[in-house]
């Protein structure tokens, strides 16, 4: 067995190790380099549209490539609202799921459920999209939107009459369901990380399971927030489900029953023929840039929160 001391320098390690390192280096560099190149490429392609249309590109809304009129406000706002609904849905579902899995289930049942959750996180999102279009959209309209409108119609969010199942709410709900496994595994992992000493202390003072869960979850709160922020970043980029369910309509309102657009859905629908028009492609790149920056910021925030919390809890 070959052992390398951590203080050995590149030139003093054995020839085999050095060759192995040199062999692996290019692939590692490529992965990191790709992110940088993607970022540069998208910014350079976006710059043309940003220069031509200025800030109005992001604060007005229009999609009329034949007359070269563009505005991305609706898809940007639509993306934010849809992913916020998705994150909220995922939070509610994942929190209950994580508590059930890590607090109440034991043995084979727990293993089985964990396997199912892992399996779900690997499902291609197009499966959710197909299911969403065929079944979820009509069901959400009849059993979620109509009752909400009927009984809570005085709240502006639910004030408008639901017309079709294709809406911000449907897209948000289905995207939310699709990110549940991801958020759940993050929350479960953090929940397990809480040192047993806390649990023993709780049980020692005679706390019920409910009280124990409440205290342990309180300790996990920063991790749960981080999980939701990471889920939000993921929801933002979701394309297939959004394109199938959001309604692809250049409109946005305070009411979540209305169809709208998201950036990913816009790119999916328009990229194919964008090169036929002068600025359409560049406008799509500037939309992608906005989402990329938002997702980067969210991911970084989430990861920082998570690692800070981990080091605190484990300390």
């Amino acid at each position: 067995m070959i052992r390398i001391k951590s203080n050995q320098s590149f030139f003093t390690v054995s020839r085999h190790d050095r060759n192995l390192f040199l062999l692996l280096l290019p692939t590692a560099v490529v992965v990191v380099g790709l992110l940088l190149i993607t970022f540069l490429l998208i910014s350079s392609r976006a710059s043309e549209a940003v220069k031509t249309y200025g800030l109005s590109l992001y604060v007005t809304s229009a999609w009329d490539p034949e007359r070269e009129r563009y505005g991305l406000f609706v898809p940007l706002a639509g993306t934010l609202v849809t992913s916020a609904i998705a994150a909220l849905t995922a939070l509610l579902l994942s929190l209950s799921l994580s508590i059930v899995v890590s607090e109440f289930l034991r043995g084979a049942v727990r293993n089985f459920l964990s396997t199912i959750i892992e399996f779900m996180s690997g499902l291609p999102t197009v499966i959710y999209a197909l299911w969403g279009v065929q079944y979820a959209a009509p069901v959400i309209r009849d059993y979620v939107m109509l009752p909400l409108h009927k009984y809570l119609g005085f709240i502006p969010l639910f004030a408008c009459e639901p017309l079709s199942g294709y809406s911000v709410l449907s897209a948000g709900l289905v995207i939310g369901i699709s990110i549940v496994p991801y958020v759940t595994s993050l929350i479960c992992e953090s929940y397990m990380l809480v040192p047993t000493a806390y649990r023993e202390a709780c049980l020692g003072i005679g706390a019920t399971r409910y009280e124990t869960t409440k205290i342990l979850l309180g300790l996990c709160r920063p991790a749960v927030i981080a999980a939701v922020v990471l889920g939000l970043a993921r929801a933002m980029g979701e394309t297939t489900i959004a394109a199938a369910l959001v309604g692809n309509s250049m409109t946005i309102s305070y009411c979540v029953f209305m169809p709208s657009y998201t950036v990913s859905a816009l790119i999916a629908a328009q990229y194919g023929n964008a090169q036929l028009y002068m600025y359409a492609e560049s406008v799509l790149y500037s939309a992608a840039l906005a989402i990329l920056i938002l997702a980067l910021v969210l991911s970084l925030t989430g990861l920082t929160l998570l690692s800070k919390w981990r080091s605190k809890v484990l300390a």
Partner: protein
Amino acid sequence: MVNPKVRKATIIAVVLVLAIVVLRLTGVLTLEPVVDVKTTTSPTLRGLTLNGAGATFPYPQIVEWVRGFYNRSGISINYQPVGSGAGLSQFLQNVTDFACSDPPLKRGDWEKYRGTVMQVPWVVGAVVIVYNIPEVPANYNLRLTGEVIAKIYRGDIRFWDDEEIKKLNTEIADRLPHKEIVAVYRSDSSGTTEVFTTFLYKSAPNVWDSKLVGKNIEWPVSKVGRGVGGQGNQGVTQVVQTTPYSIGYVEWSFAITNKLQVAAVKNREGNYVLPSENALKEALRNINLPKSPLDDFSRTLEETIYAGGPNSYPITSPSYIILWRSYQSNNKALAMSEFLKWVATEGYKNVVPGYVAPPSEVINLLLKAAEILISK
């Protein structure tokens, strides 16, 4: 414990068997010998591939022809349904050998390539108005005018029991529900949208502005929140199927295969017509087609839509094959010419539901194009 080697071999065997079964079932792998090629073409052309790209509209028909032509001649044709616009730009950049486009070349483009580019309206189809109103009996076809459809897509007509719709459908007027209309459109850039909006503009110029004609437009109805976009014909079909009280427009073949309810549309002479083979043929009979494939067809799109003739279907639209008059390679020119001839003589005997064979003038245009095709 099973020997790992044995287990590995078993897994490989199972995977192989499964793969063969799947390939057999999907028809990718055929065990029967390929139907012997009754070739009329010279053996040098066999194994040649022609590349084309363009409209999705004639795709089902082209697939059928490609298969038939390959069995006959051994020449394969590779057609990518990427959309009219993208197909045309690939063709003009010489990436592909031919293009298919719903709208013909614009006059400016035609002038630029005058004498070198040929166009033939070789597949005829229609855009049909489909709807989903549970209250309307399945054996009744809603009657609509261009003006009413335009008002729906503008958001001016809001409910299905609007007086203007009732007036056209007196038999079922009391069954039309007081429900808001969801107008479904194509979210991608599409030739079907161009045909549909051209129809709205031609039949109701006072309601539908010429600014609202094109492949990709800003739908007024989406501003009031009653518009939903679907990706491709399939997307529009799905939205209409799953949304009660919606209306949409798709290619005729999609309405047939998905059994959607189709509206009868008022034509220029005031009759309400459903899409049918005769109704489509009559629409084409009443237009002046250019005499040569080298001529300008840019006005034909407007002419076939809302054409004259008492029984003509008003949203009839041919899809064009666009090709060069001369090709670098002699074999390519010959193969292309063979294909056009085969379509004109044999291909039209096998027309897929949703399309009709064009009138004899068009067949002559195809034969003429085949005749004047040359190699550089």
